[in-house]
């Protein structure tokens, strides 16, 4: 099954909903004009469709292979990665000082969606490199930056994030890996698990970022430091030196993303891997958190990226497969299953929700771009709050819903969907990791409630709700039945969400909030998605006034938004009821009663 990037949909959101031209007016983003961004999207669509997408299925079948400490990627991956680097895709949003193109995160997110739709296992390699580059760029010394960043930005070296250990998963306070000072470097020892692209044959070198403790470190989270540990040591002239004391000891056998090597890494089996401290001692976790938003956002993009691929396959199948007499078919020749109302329901749910998630993902990225480049401090701080508030929604909601949509995509195929050769099952298997890694949904929900909602007394949230109400006011003033219908549902949803917000702020105990936190996250995800689609509908209505408007396409934006308002936004109301009425029962049984 091929993949055709939805360039028109993405460009529409960027240009008419997010306000790309405003971002292009910010200092440093002057290049990102709508016409240039469209040219980038077009070429990215070609590259991902022609080069990355065809390797998705073979990558799944072959998987990455481990042999005597070295990992090899599936057939064709090296060549595809070389083209990826040669064409400069990895460097899109990186700083020009190190050879990057310096484009906004918003544009990067739009392009990265295509990587993950085309081939999520492939997209993970540059995604991890991005995280490592961010950490080094923001926290490492100038010397370390000069030594590592140019090649990483270019993509000839990749990066990894080594956090997890067998006893330290979601709780990083339990990290046990050690780092002992030794002259100008440290000797790092310990075992790390779940290291994505921890070893592979795509790049000349791999730069591991590793969390470890110094001998005198205080216990818990305040005693963790961050180190650069390269696979091959880098000489002063930039050439590669000897092999460092780090190796991949095995690959995990996983449900999906088979081509993405998930490594068990062993550091210091022969005395200690040479590592270089990033920033200050004991500050490792703080550094990790500053880049966490970006990494979590990127995984949220995976969530809707893979759902888009599942949608394209389900749509193609629904148009082709004939089964039974349909209610919506116009004549005998028009009897594909797409004309069964329930298949329409699935496709509408997929298409509208993907548009909502994409809108929110790009809105969140654009908030970070504005926060970074806005000169007005009040606006900049407001945008930073917005970006941080939306991040757990993009990550938690888009990945949970992404899995559900991939499951719906299988459903369209009936029994065929359950058969591996059809290909629909792969998206479902691949998507299933996204609500788990980079912080599970529960972790995102805690982040949303604790750090993003309650900590500032709900300020960021009230700003968001007040922006939603502003949209609502605009919709209500439009003399248009669709807009009125959307406004009515959005209004009810906002009210329900506010009820849950107040209830949560009133809780003096932590347990009721924790017991309903995931519901709270999903509620705000569905609501924010509905807001994005309401804005899309508004923009589409306005564009439709032009004499040469693409009416059928724009009308569809409005109908999709209305469908979502009618069919998805009520979930906000039910979530609100659940949040305010189920916390006590959720934890009422003792463990031995379960």
């Amino acid at each position, binding site marked *: 099954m091929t993949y*055709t990037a939805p360039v*028109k949909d993405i460009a529409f959101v960027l240009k008419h909903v997010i306000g790309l031209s405003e971002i292009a007016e910010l200092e440093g983003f002057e*290049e990102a*004009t709508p*016409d*240039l961004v469209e*040219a*980038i999207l*077009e*070429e990215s669509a*070609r*590259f991902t469709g*022609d*080069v990355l997408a065809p390797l998705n299925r073979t990558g799944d079948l072959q998987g990455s292979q481990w042999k005597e400490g070295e990992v090899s990627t599936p057939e064709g991956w090296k060549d595809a990665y070389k*083209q990826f680097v*040669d*064409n*400069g*895709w990895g*460097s*899109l949003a990186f700083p020009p000082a190190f050879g990057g*193109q310096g484009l906004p995160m918003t544009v990067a997110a739009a392009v990265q969606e295509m990587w993950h739709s085309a081939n999520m296992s492939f997209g993970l390699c540059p995604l991890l490199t991005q995280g490592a580059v961010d950490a080094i760029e923001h926290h490492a010394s100038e010397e370390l930056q000069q030594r590592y960043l140019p090649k990483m930005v270019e993509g000839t070296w990749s990066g990894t994030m080594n956090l997890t250990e067998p006893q330290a998963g979601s709780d990083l306070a339990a990290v046990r890996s050690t780092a002992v000072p030794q002259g100008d470097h440290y000797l790092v020892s310990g075992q790390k698990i779940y290291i994505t692209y921890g070893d592979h044959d795509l790049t000349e070198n791999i730069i591991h970022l590793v969390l470890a403790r110094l001998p005198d470190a205080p216990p818990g989270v305040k005693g963790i430091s961050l180190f650069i540990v390269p696979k091959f040591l880098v000489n002063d002239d930039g050439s590669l030196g000897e092999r460092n004391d780090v190796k991949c000891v095995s690959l995990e056998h996983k449900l999906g993303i088979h081509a993405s090597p998930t490594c068990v890494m062993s550091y210091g089996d022969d005395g200690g891997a040479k590592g270089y401290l990033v920033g200050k001692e004991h500050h490792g976790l703080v550094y990790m958190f500053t880049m966490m938003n970006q990494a979590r956002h990127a995984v949220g993009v995976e969530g809707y990226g893979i759902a888009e691929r599942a949608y394209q396959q389900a749509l193609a199948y629904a148009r082709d497969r004939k089964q039974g007499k349909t209610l919506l078919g116009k004549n005998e020749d028009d009897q594909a299953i797409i004309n069964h109302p329930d298949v329409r329901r699935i496709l509408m749910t997929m298409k509208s929700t993907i548009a909502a998630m994409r809108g929110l993902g790009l809105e969140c990225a654009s908030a970070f771009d504005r926060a970074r480049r806005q000169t007005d401090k009040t606006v900049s701080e407001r945008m930073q709050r917005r970006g941080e508030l939306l991040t757990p929604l993009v990550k938690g909601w888009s990945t949970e819903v992404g899995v559900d949509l991939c499951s719906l995509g299988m459903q369209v195929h009936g029994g065929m969907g359950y058969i591996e050769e059809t290909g629909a099952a792969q998206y479902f298997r691949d998507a299933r990791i996204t609500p788990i890694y980079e912080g599970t949904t529960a972790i995102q929900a805690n982040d949303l409630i604790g750090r993003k909602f309650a900590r500032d007394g709900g300020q960021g949230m009230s700003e968001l709700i007040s922006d939603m109400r502003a949209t609502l006011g605009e919709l209500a003033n439009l003399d248009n039945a669709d807009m009125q219908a959307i406004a009515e549902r959005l209004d009810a949803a906002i009210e329900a969400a506010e009820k849950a917000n107040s209830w949560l702020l009133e809780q003096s105990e932590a347990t009721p909030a924790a017991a309903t936190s995931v519901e709270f996250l999903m509620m705000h995800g569905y609501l924010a998605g509905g807001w994005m689609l309401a804005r899309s509908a508004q923009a589409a209505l306005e564009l439709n006034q032009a004499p*040469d*408007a*693409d009416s059928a*396409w724009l009308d569809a934006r409005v109908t999709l938004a209305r469908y979502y308002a009618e069919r998805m936004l009520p979930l906000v109301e039910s979530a609100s009821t659940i949040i305010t009425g189920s916390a006590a029962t959720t934890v009422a049984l003792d463990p031995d009663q379960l």
Partner: protein
Amino acid sequence: MKIIVGVKRVLDYNVKARVKADKSGIELANVKMSMNPFDEIAVEEALRIKEAGNADEVIAVSIGPSQSQETIRTALAMGADRGILIETDEQLQPLAIAKLFKHLVEKEEPGLVVLGKQAIDDDSNQTGQMLSAMTGMSQATFASKVEFDGDHLKVTREVDAGLESIKVSLPSIITADLRLNEPRYAKLPNIMKAKKKPLEVIPVADTGVDVSSGLSVVEVNEPPKREAGIIVNSVAELVEKLRNEAKVI
């Protein structure tokens, strides 16, 4: 040596062409348009010739509406040095296009003009040949391989009978066939640089070229739908039907 390469903005090859309701032509409003695929091959060949050191400059030329600038930008992103758009909202016939190219050939004096063998919209396959006749430049059409040999070119042509090798003198006109090369993807930094490369827009009236045509489109229709086939019971019946019904033998 300069190379002029022609790039035409056409209905994207993935889009199903639909006849306009008034049958005056194909519906082009709000559909995806891209560079003619044979022209992509032409651009790629021009760039390879330049990269091999046999040319100094590649000029991408389009003739069409203002939006054709996007097509030229695509060629610039692939690596062409500058662009020229001769702007017109008229649907010009190959003869007028050839005349306009002749105008540019006189102005720019290229050593080589590389065109696609035909455009996928009207499949005329005439411009290169006409341009050769008008300018006196040699022509090597349907090229599947181009090699430099001093001040000559050795060109392999795809003809009905197979492959034909010819040698032509420069300046010359090449029209690209499908197997000449595989066009590159534009690199991200080059897409960004393309925006800053010079792109000259010349209104067609300023060229002084007579682009009037003796042809007019009367009506455009969908091709007739294919009818279902039949299964014959014997060879004899097949021959009988071919002879008497299809009248092909």
